[in-house]
């Protein structure tokens, strides 16, 4: 007997506004998102966190450690098939730690080094990290239309032009013919 419809308790999920904002980075400007799609993706995110955490936690227990670390989380993602995330996350973590170290060692100096464009650093690992053969050419196609996945730090219009080509010229299944 299936359980009664669960109340969609907001505190179990990422805030819907944040989820939508991230979705909008992918979607072309004219795209609409149904409410049930937003909720479903919200639920999927929480499920993802639980799924990865479970695996990370098991590893900690096997190794008799009490604290789940960032490394455990990234390791679990690699183990559970999200190996394409490992490199960008590792770079992200390294940058984060460097910034934290700067904060403690540069007391009294401006912390925000505006010359550093983290966007550029975030871009590089996206390319090589996405292995085409594992993902049925999804990211291959995305790159083919002008790097939809690439946050182009230089061009303000880069996002929208990528979106245009994605919808106008893009045959998502062309490479499967």
């Amino acid at each position: 007997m299936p359980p009664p419809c669960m109340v969609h308790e907001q505190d179990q999920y990422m805030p819907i506004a944040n989820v939508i904002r991230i979705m909008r980075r992918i979607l072309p400007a004219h795209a609409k998102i149904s409410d049930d799609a937003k909720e479903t993706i919200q639920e999927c995110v929480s499920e993802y966190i639980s799924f990865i955490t479970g695996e990370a936690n098991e590893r900690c227990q096997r190794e008799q450690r009490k604290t789940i670390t960032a490394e455990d989380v990234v390791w679990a993602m690699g183990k559970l098939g999200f190996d394409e995330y490992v490199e960008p996350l590792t770079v992200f973590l390294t940058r984060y730690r460097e910034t934290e170290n700067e904060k403690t060692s540069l007391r009294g100096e401006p912390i925000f080094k505006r010359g550093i464009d983290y966007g550029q650093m975030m871009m590089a690992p996206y390319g090589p990290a996405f292995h085409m053969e594992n993902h049925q050419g999804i990211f291959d196609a995305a790159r083919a239309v002008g790097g939809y996945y690439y946050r182009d730090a230089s061009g303000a219009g880069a996002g929208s032009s990528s979106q245009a080509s994605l919808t106008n010229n893009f045959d998502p299944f062309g490479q499967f013919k």
Partner: protein
Amino acid sequence: MRQAGAYSGILCGGISGRTGPHLLPLARIKKIMKKSGDDVKMISGEAPIVFSKACELFIEELTQRSWLVTMQGKRRTLNKEDVTSAVLATDIFDFLVNLVSET
């Protein structure tokens, strides 16, 4: 909503902030991590931070795949069925099959 501090630079993908603030709430992430199992004890401070970035990647991937289904149907509204199709078509999303099959 812009949060000053090291996080916004890293997580926004650029200090210029062109991409806008999108920090996923760390306390909420930690709460969900704790709920994932009775035996989850301690979580390092960095774990929710790496998850916030991972969740962005996850949402982007799921959205991208769902939208391809929408386009295949020559529609402009991404609906729940498109998400379901994307989940079913992607091996690494197997853990979501039950979730999208409910209701």
